[in-house]
């Protein structure tokens, strides 16, 4: 049995469907919330005999319980070609693996899972409306096969907001985040209603594993632009410093809109990912 991803939406879930997450909904199932007079909550099944007997005014008291509700989980996936990067692992494969695990985990606890793929536009061929169907994980794996990553740019992420209208949802924004911070800010703003979890797919060959010396002829996976770089320790230090600064800026930006990013480096460890989600 594969491990599941354990996630907790921020705040109370507003959904009406019964599920696994604490909600503001008051109902007949769940954990104890408070005692109210029978008149206020006429649920005869939950009459609290002890509280009623103890009540000095002989009011019939009813236990109100916190209903647990389900939430829609969406994976908003950056389908730009930069995720075709192949280092210690293929980033695209990691994304597919992650989304399939999310779909499996979500449907197992009664949440619905949906998928939105974007590059320069919102990719309708890679769109899956939220569904509680159990087989959705297999669909997600099929939709996210590596040949989908062909686009350049990620402006399509801005078009996703209308597809996510309505109740508060949990949105995993999966990307390598090699995007302009300005674009990211606008994406975060457009999704501000939702619980956004940025998931950064990284590879250690992009940072720490860079060579110390030598010539690297770099080719941008999206634009195809080439640049010859003469690597040397000083340049690598500068590269890593710039990278670290960028990651910090990303954390700050994401933090302003909810959560700090969860980073997946080289391999996907679901337990690790769950822990990262709790810390985020």
């Amino acid at each position, binding site marked *: 049995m594969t491990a599941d991803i354990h996630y907790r939406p921020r705040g109370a879930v507003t959904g009406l469907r019964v599920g696994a997450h604490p909600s503001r909904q008051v109902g007949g199932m769940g954990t104890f919330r408070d005692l109210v007079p029978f008149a206020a909550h006429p649920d005869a099944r939950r009459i609290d005999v002890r509280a009623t007997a103890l009540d000095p005014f002989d009011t019939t008291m009813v236990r109100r319980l916190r209903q647990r509700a389900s939430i829609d989980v969406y994976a908003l996936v950056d389908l730009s070609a930069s995720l075709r990067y192949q280092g210690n692992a293929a980033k695209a494969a990691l994304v597919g693996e992650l989304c399939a695990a999310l779909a499996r985990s979500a449907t197992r606890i009664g949440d619905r899972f949906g998928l939105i793929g974007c590059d320069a536009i919102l990719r309708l061929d890679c769109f899956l409306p939220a569904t509680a169907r159990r087989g959705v994980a297999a669909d997600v794996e099929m939709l996210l096969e590596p040949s989908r990553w062909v686009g350049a740019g990620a402006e399509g992420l801005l078009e996703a907001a209308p597809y996510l209208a309505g109740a508060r949802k949990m949105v995993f924004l999966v990307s390598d985040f090699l995007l302009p911070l300005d674009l990211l800010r606008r994406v975060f703003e457009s999704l501000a209603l939702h619980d956004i979890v940025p998931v950064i797919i990284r590879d250690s060959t992009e940072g720490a594993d860079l060579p110390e010396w030598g010539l690297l002829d770099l080719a*941008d996976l999206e634009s195809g632009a080439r640049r010859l*770089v*003469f690597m040397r320790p000083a340049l690598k230090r500068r590269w890593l410093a710039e990278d670290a600064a960028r990651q910090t800026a990303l954390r700050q930006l994401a933090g302003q809109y909810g959560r700090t990013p969860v980073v997946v480096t080289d391999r996907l460890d679901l337990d690790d990912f769950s822990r990262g989600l709790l810390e985020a």
Partner: protein
Amino acid sequence: MILNADHPWVLVLLPLAVLPWLRSPHRRTAIGSIAVVPADRLSAWVRLGLRIAGMLAIALIILALSGPYHGGRLVSRIGTGAQLVLLLDRSGSMSDTFAGRTPEGAEESKASATKRLLRDFIGRRPHDLFGVAAFSTAPMLVLPLTDHQDAVLAAVNASDRRGLNFTNIARGLGMALSMFAADRPDEHHVILLVSDGGAVIDPHVQDQLRALFARYRADLYFLFLRTAGSKGLFDEPGPDENTPQAMPEHFLHRYFQTLGVPYHAFQAESPGQVEEAIRQIDALERYPITYTEHLPRRDLTGWAYALACPPLLLLLAAKLMEARVRVRPAATRPDRRVAA
């Protein structure tokens, strides 16, 4: 300084020199976004330097392939001399001595003496164009008109081999005349006919030869090597031998006189007389002649290759300096679950 090339068409390939600006020769390393690469001035210089090196290497190699040189012109100069065709008799009797015997000991055959004296003659006239033809039964083109003295000397050297026993002067003359250009009035044409016997020329062929001489305007020198006891050129025939068959040399002489071109006949009965005759010819044939001289040229191919070498070495060094992003084998990757 005039640059020139042996194969100029190779230079058509020169636009290939822009290739380094269009394509990269290095191993491609894919990266998610080029924007994360820090701007680096040294890298930019290396980039520019390698492109220029690639361009230079391609351009210089193409230049080298085209075979560049400078100098090496043909210069036309005016000297004194003539275009001279040596028409040598190769009949068997030329291998005999002037006494009409097979040479023994220190005796010299007519052919050897002629050869030796002609060599001196050629050596004294550096600006002449020489051609060599020989004849016995049929004419042989030995060497067309050329200013390469070595070739001429070699051709003359080979002229004392034994030949066949027939003398076909008419066809030999025809071949000698055909070496000249008919449409160059500024050239001076000379035929030096060396023979030890006359031959009967058919009247029909006589007319053809006369026409040819009129067309090519060649001076004719007839060096007759008279063998002891035989009839001479200038001997008047007796009443009973007044036919070409009886005295072919004399009738040949008379025919040549009617050709309408400057004609000199020399009769030599010993090597000394041959030398005297050749000296006279040398003195007579002094005309202005246009000759061409090759100025030596300097081959620049080596220089082009040498100049292409440093850029090539630079490119090689760059190729060897290429780094590779090393992918760690799965086993050595840190297992974050254990680490956490």
